[in-house]
């Protein structure tokens, strides 16, 4: 999977994506940036990039 096109401020959209994702795993709470617990932004499999993130699921 490539870089998420929505960037780092699409909180509602990535909460919906994470809700539908069977591979979601909460990251350490100190790394959470979204208020919704289940969010790609709070997922252990997201790797931040300069402008967005890359989903690394399948590598965990």
């Amino acid at each position, binding site marked *: 999977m490539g870089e998420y096109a929505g960037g780092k401020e699409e*909180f509602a959209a990535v909460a919906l994506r994470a809700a539908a994702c069977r591979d979601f795993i909460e*990251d*350490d709470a100190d*790394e*959470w*940036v979204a*208020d919704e617990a289940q969010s790609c932004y709070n997922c*252990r499999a997201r790797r*931040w990039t*300069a402008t967005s993130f890359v989903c690394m699921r399948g590598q965990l």
Partner: protein
Amino acid sequence: MKVLISIDDTDNLDSPGTGALAAEIARMIRVRNWGQTFCITRHQLYIHPAIPYTSHNSAMCFAADIDPACTETMIAASAEFLVEQSAVGSDPGLCVVRTETCTDPGALVGFGQAAKSQVLSKEDAYCLARRLRLHLSEHGGTGQGVIGALAGAGLRLSGNDGRMRGRLTLSGDASQITVKALREHRDIDAVQTLAGELLPDSTLINLGDKVKTVLLGGGSTLLVTEEVAGAVARWRTCSNQELKGY
């Protein structure tokens, strides 16, 4: 002796995070009676394709007050801990700064600030560590974590960077609390708005689910923001989203 202990690049995607290892080193220091430890701060570093990092490129640092006779033992044990506990494929680095004898704190702070917006090299890090006579060591992999470890110490020393690890536990189950009561908490030094305004002691604050402080003005600072109209208190604690830039 007051020291800063900073580590970076100890994890992989499915290992405990660097913050958990920092907490274990702090616990070891207390358990072995080498000294007292203080809160751990997380410092965000530059995210750039030329920088290898696991998922977020952050360093972890804590302050400690160590019995001078135990300092070298503590450094050796911390290094050994990193060798044993760092994840496969990680590139751990350890930095220990004796803050009272650091000859050029401005240079260390400058390195930390540069690491938030520039690609730095191991040689840059070792060169500064040698000049300032700081402990900087690598413990596996490429050892690239020395850059973040040194930067983490500099940013902690700046007193104006990063979020405190963990969240605060406040006694009682009240949903509102005064600034005075918050400032009496052992892990809160100041309460201020996102705009930087210090609030009077009598101000009432609505507490969110997670109460977390940031390192500002040299202390553990609780940031608050304006509530929606009609709320009991005018101010509330900030959410994850509101603190993500720290």
